[in-house]
């Protein structure tokens, strides 16, 4: 005959196992119903407030495939790196407007900009920026040239620029523009002249 205390122990264990199973099942359905972080298209940082400065943005225009210098008055923080980030976010806000001359996908953003001396800048785009970007040699080139020419024209001393996506290297922006190497700012400035 099975001892009574042994039967009780088995029964308690079975009840505990059943309870844990129900809890895990509940947790799984909770996780499944939570929207994925990657689909969150809200900007990653709040807009900066404070004194404004006049800067030159180089805005891409798809209608004639040009890059046009546009003056803008925007609030800029004091740090060199934060200024560069805000500068590019300001440029991006033009592209995300309804009447955008060069449409970018919803949720496109700059994650961060790193200024590494001497003369090296790293622009880290979020995944939505690249994943939703239109494909084509010119349309991708306009985006890249706009970013690089804007940051180099407003941040003296930058010689080369690397573009990352979500903190990682990526072969191309959307199938054409090469992101695997450092862009030579002098060469991009010449290209920007061609594009004007």
């Amino acid at each position, binding site marked *: 005959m099975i001892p009574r205390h042994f039967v009780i122990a088995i029964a308690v264990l079975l009840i505990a196992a059943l309870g844990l199973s129900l809890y895990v099942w509940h947790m799984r359905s909770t996780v499944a119903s939570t929207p994925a972080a990657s689909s969150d298209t809200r900007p990653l940082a709040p807009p900066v407030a404070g004194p404004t400065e006049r800067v030159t943005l180089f805005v891409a225009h798809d209608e004639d495939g040009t890059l046009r210098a546009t003056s803008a008055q925007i609030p800029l923080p004091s740090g060199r790196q934060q200024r560069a980030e805000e500068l590019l976010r300001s440029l991006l806000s033009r592209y995300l407007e309804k009447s955008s001359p060069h449409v970018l996908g919803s949720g496109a953003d700059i994650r961060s900009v790193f200024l590494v001396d001497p003369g090296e800048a790293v622009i880290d785009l979020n995944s939505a920026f690249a994943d939703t970007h239109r*494909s084509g040699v010119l*349309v991708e080139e306009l985006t890249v040239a706009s970013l690089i020419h804007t940051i180099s024209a407003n941040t003296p001393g930058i010689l080369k620029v690397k573009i990352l996506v979500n903190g990682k290297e990526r072969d191309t922006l959307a199938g054409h*523009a090469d992101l695997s*190497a450092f862009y030579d700012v002098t060469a991009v400035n010449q290209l920007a002249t*061609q594009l004007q």
Partner: protein
Amino acid sequence: MRWTNRGQNAVLLACGTVLLSVLVLSGAAPEKHLTVYSVAANYSPPLVQREGREYVGLLEVLEPLGKVSAKSEGPRWRLRYNNVESDFQAGKARARIQGRDADLGAKFLLENNRGLVSVGSLGALLPRFLGGPVTVHEDSGRVFIGSVATHFTASLTPDNPPRLVFHFTGPVNPTVATEPGALRMTFSREPLVAPASPTLTFGNKIIPSAIYSESNGMAVVTVNASTPVMATFSGDGRTVTISPTSAPAVAQNVTPAAPGIPAAQAPPATVAPNAPPAPAARRYFAVVDASHGGDDHGETLSSTLLEKDVTASLARSLRQELESRGIPTLMLRDSDANLSVDQRAIFANADHAAIYIAVHAASNGHGVRVYTALLPYSGDDRGVFRSWTTAQHASLPLSQSAASAVAAELQKRQIPVRNLAAALRPLNNMIGAAIAVEVAPQGADSSQLTAPDYQQLVTSAVATAIAATRDQLGAAQ
């Protein structure tokens, strides 16, 4: 000893059976083969018909090209080619190669431990194993691995009577046969590929036309003639001259046919019959690269139009236009193959072509954009070794000159054009002149990109510009 009736009947029956067998076998269809052309070897594995498709043993196709082994475990068949591992399953139309899925397009078959794949799937399969471009002519059972294709041009001399001169980019050794009104050259071992147009017309009464065709692993050029003609070989087997039998062949270094025997029936002079053509370094003047392909669709131009398909069509048109101007041209991608930009650069650089032309298509903007490389920051050349990322550096002025010529020619034809630099691989990896041509519609309708007249308008302008700068480009080759 006397034959009994029964014995006689048995002998008659046996003789009848043997005779019937001979008759049946002699009338059977010839065995079909796939012909594979590669730098390593040219060979012809047999084809088998299964479920209405042509199949071939994958092991037999890869064996002459490298170290290969296969093992079957139930319905699974594992193949290892050099360092590439693959896993096939009988009855499945997908396989895994180096951990990635590959679509076979038709079921994989396993017969007596022999893995069979459809000929149609080779275009997608072989580049995954070999890591380079593979062109498959499915209908005719011909597979070209790498840059092995032999191209040819045909021109009629203004002499009377006229002579038709074929120039081949490599030595050839066709079987020549004549019949009333035609001379047929069959190329069973040469990787001969079609000229710009399969039908060449010369507007001459004696030799009005020549037709290129392919079937059962062979290429055939049929020269139509109103009088008996003969073929003579010269230039180490790279030139074949077709002339009326009454007219002596006058090409220099022509090896005449044996005295008293019409050349059409004489054995070709340079290469022994059935011997594979001697490997020769083939030089193409231009390399045309249809961008994207395989899993890389490029831009989705419309709901039914992918950039990779438009670039292939444009590239074919450009090759035709270049070859019709006498420019030997290699097309890097002629099927829906996956090719990385590094592979494209390696193959094009290995050919030492005078110019590399990448073809792109876009729905954005109007007309054509001609690009040269926007070189990345610095490059760490070490002595005689060039940096891969800036290999284009020395040839950039030549590329810019070619791009300007192309842009000028497009402008002449009223096509909106822009000349720009672009960080577009593999332009920066090319050691010779390199440009990219991005074709957009003239209006808002992307379907114009597939219109033959628009394609020809663009490609003929590009080809005319390349032909005009031929001397300049060739000098640097």
